[in-house]
């Protein structure tokens, strides 16, 4: 059974200042499957439909058409059986009781998920420790930094040990150390057999922690694959980065068969793209023979795939 199964999912919103009946489509016939125990990233710019999809899966928003199932249960018709299975982390500054302590917040949310009284304290203490919040457990949440709030959101989402986790931009506002710890945590959750749908802007994050990633834009899915496959999708080319390449050699490179492009950036680093592995070796030999020793071969990162598929719009909000 799949952890998440989405078929033809559509969600329209009335335009706030539009004509009567005018709609904006946030999700346009989405099909997506997340297997049990899989960590799946949903990548897309602001307004792509990521949060809308999370909200539908979290049962707080009803789709206009299509179906979504969590572990085989429909999120619209079987609320009572779906809700205990999922942990939602919407993130951000909102969504917690700022006047209360982190511990008190966790006790409350745990109680709403039916965690028995005697387990609440132990579970909250364990999660506070896991997220490095023990020292601040009894401080008001309103005094927390954004990164600390984000960690508390994650702890809240795990209070009832859900089988499926929906993480909407979970590392927003986290410092690099916390973000690295978060990636470690995702690995631990995967080993515990939990399924995770993670929305993010952070390509490195998706590349590091996810089994598969889905690129979404303007309410439509562009592509779903492993981060490595997505890299290969855009450019099957191998690349060489080198510094201090003689100008004469650069000109010679540009005319070689198997070399698709040669570009030198303002930082003096030359990027040479070749068609395949067979073309790579002769080019490397040529560089080494010319005395270029500062060089490396690289593959395109997920960020490049993402930016290429999304286009020039980048992080602009979809209209």
């Amino acid at each position, binding site marked *: 059974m799949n952890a998440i199964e989405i078929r033809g999912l559509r969600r329209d919103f009335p335009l706030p200042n539009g004509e009567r009946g005018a709609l904006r489509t946030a999700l346009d016939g989405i099909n997506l499957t997340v297997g049990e125990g899989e960590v799946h990233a949903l990548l897309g710019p602001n307004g792509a439909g990521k949060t809308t999809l999370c909200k539908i899966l*979290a049962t707080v928003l009803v789709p206009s058409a299509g179906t979504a199932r969590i572990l085989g249960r429909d999120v619209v018709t079987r609320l009572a059986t779906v809700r205990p299975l999922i942990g939602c982390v919407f993130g951000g500054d909102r969504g917690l009781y700022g006047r*209360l302590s982190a511990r008190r917040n966790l006790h409350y949310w745990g109680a709403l998920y039916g965690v028995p009284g005697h387990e609440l304290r132990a579970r909250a203490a364990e999660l506070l420790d896991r997220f490095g919040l023990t020292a601040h457990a009894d401080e008001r949440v309103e005094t927390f930094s954004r990164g600390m709030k984000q960690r508390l959101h994650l702890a809240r989402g795990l209070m009832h040990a859900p089988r499926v986790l929906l993480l909407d931009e979970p590392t927003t506002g986290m410092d690099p150390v916390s973000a690295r710890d978060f990636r470690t945590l995702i690995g631990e959750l995967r080993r515990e057999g939990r399924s995770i749908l993670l929305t993010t802007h952070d390509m490195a994050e998706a590349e590091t922690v996810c089994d598969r990633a889905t690129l979404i834009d303007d309410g439509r899915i562009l592509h779903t694959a492993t981060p490595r496959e997505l890299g290969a999708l855009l450019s099957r080319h191998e690349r060489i980065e080198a510094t201090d390449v003689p100008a004469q050699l650069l000109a010679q490179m540009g005319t070689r068969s198997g070399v698709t492009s040669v570009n030198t950036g303002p930082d003096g680093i030359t990027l040479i793209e070749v068609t395949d592995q067979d073309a790579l070796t002769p080019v490397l030999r040529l560089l080494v023979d010319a005395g270029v020793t500062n060089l490396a071969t690289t593959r395109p990162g997920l960020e490049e795939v993402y930016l290429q598929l999304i286009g020039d719009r980048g992080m602009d909000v979809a209209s």
Partner: protein
Amino acid sequence: MRAFRAGLSLQAALLWRSPGNLHVLATVPLYTLILLAMTDASHQAGLAPNAIIAPTLMALWTMALFTAGDLIDRDRHDGTLEPTVATPAPLAQVITGRICAVTAASLIAFAEAWVVGLCFGVHLSVHHPLTLVVGILTTSLTTACTAALIATLLVLTRGGRPYQNSLSFPFYLLSGIVVPIEVLPHWVHPISRIIYLSWSADLLRSAFRPEEPRQLPMQLIALGLLAAAGLACASVLMRRVLDRVRILGTLGHA
């Protein structure tokens, strides 16, 4: 019941951490002083119980209107409504628990008014203690049920503050908690009787009178019916409102 207890305990903690929500209690001694001064100036010592009960009921109603009534809307504003709805806990139970905490806190007003009365030299005799206890309990229950209805209605009316303001003083007057209903025009009486506070005021006052509280059964039935009606309307409305905002996608809108 777990959701109810969670709501009750959450709201108690919030009230403890945000005493500003109990600001109404700061006005109770002042209202009590004013009303006692009026009874004294008009040589109507017999109305002293009214001067003690009126500020108490005013505090209960104000807390129901402004603190309990705001609960859902404030949660929506703070982004806590969405994660609450996403849990398996029934929202109506959570909210009812929270409202009961607010109502229980409002009962401090009764002790405040009583103490002010003592300071003013007013020693009230409770002729029917059981009636007083039953009166306080049923009034609290009906207040909580009515507050649940208000909280749900305010979700529908975005920016409900003007409605809340307009429901305070007119209700004090219409319900006869400041001026007895008998003094009001006859045509107002049926309207007054729809407001639970009118029954509560009569019930609590009767505990301080030497004569037998013969109206007690009728008052209890009236309060019970109004509580049941408020709770039933709140439950149905809350379900419908939740369905509606999940369809419209406005659950998380501030």
